[in-house]
């Protein structure tokens, strides 16, 4: 089975800190995604990567950046964390022929104090 692993289930950081969320997938998928999930809003796409070193902005990229140096790893970076970035963050992957997310990690619940 495909496994998408997010490095932390829970994370607490302070306003202004630089925060790294890590995601690894083990099925050699081309596509990787970062979403945030907030009550009543559904999932919103932050960034998408379709290949190593390639990235595209999603619907809400402001305040975030990403890094994809290796195919299996996709990192989300909060450059200067703010309280409105408190959320559940979900990483996902899919094979090249299907650019919609198929396999999700279990999420990182990030709190910014």
């Amino acid at each position, binding site marked *: 089975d495909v496994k998408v692993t997010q490095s932390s289930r829970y994370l607490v950081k302070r306003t202004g800190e630089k925060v790294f969320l890590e995601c690894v997938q083990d099925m050699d998928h081309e596509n990787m995604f970062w979403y945030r999930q907030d009550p*009543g809003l559904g*999932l919103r796409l932050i960034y998408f990567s379709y290949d190593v070193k390639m990235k595209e902005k*999603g619907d809400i990229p402001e305040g975030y950046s990403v890094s994809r140096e290796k195919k299996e790893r996709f990192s989300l970076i909060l450059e200067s964390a703010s309280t409105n970035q408190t959320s559940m963050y979900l990483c996902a992957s899919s094979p090249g022929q299907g*650019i*919609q997310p198929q396999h999700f990690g*279990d999420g990182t619940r990030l709190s910014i104090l």
Partner: protein
Amino acid sequence: GESVGLHLPTLSVQEGDNSIINCAYSNSASDYFIWYKQESGKGPQFIIDIRSNMDKRQGQRVTVLLNKTVKHLSLQIAATQPGDSAVYFCAERGGNDYKLSFGAGTTVTVRA
């Protein structure tokens, strides 16, 4: 902009009954739809998908119906089991945009 929504935020179902979860969408150009299931403490899980050139697709105990005339999507779960308790999301892909738009979700609770 386009929106995807579910008709009801919660649904309570008796174990063994069939469940129907509804979703309305507004983008008539959407060509692909997905249903996801999210159990408590876990990430969403792909259940079933359907393309706009189809009206119905069946999986294991699940059926997705697409009515393009009224822009309505439904997920039917046969013989609902306790393990079906979860939040269910629909998602659509606009015809000229690879990105998915997600609904807010319906929480399904199965009563024993």
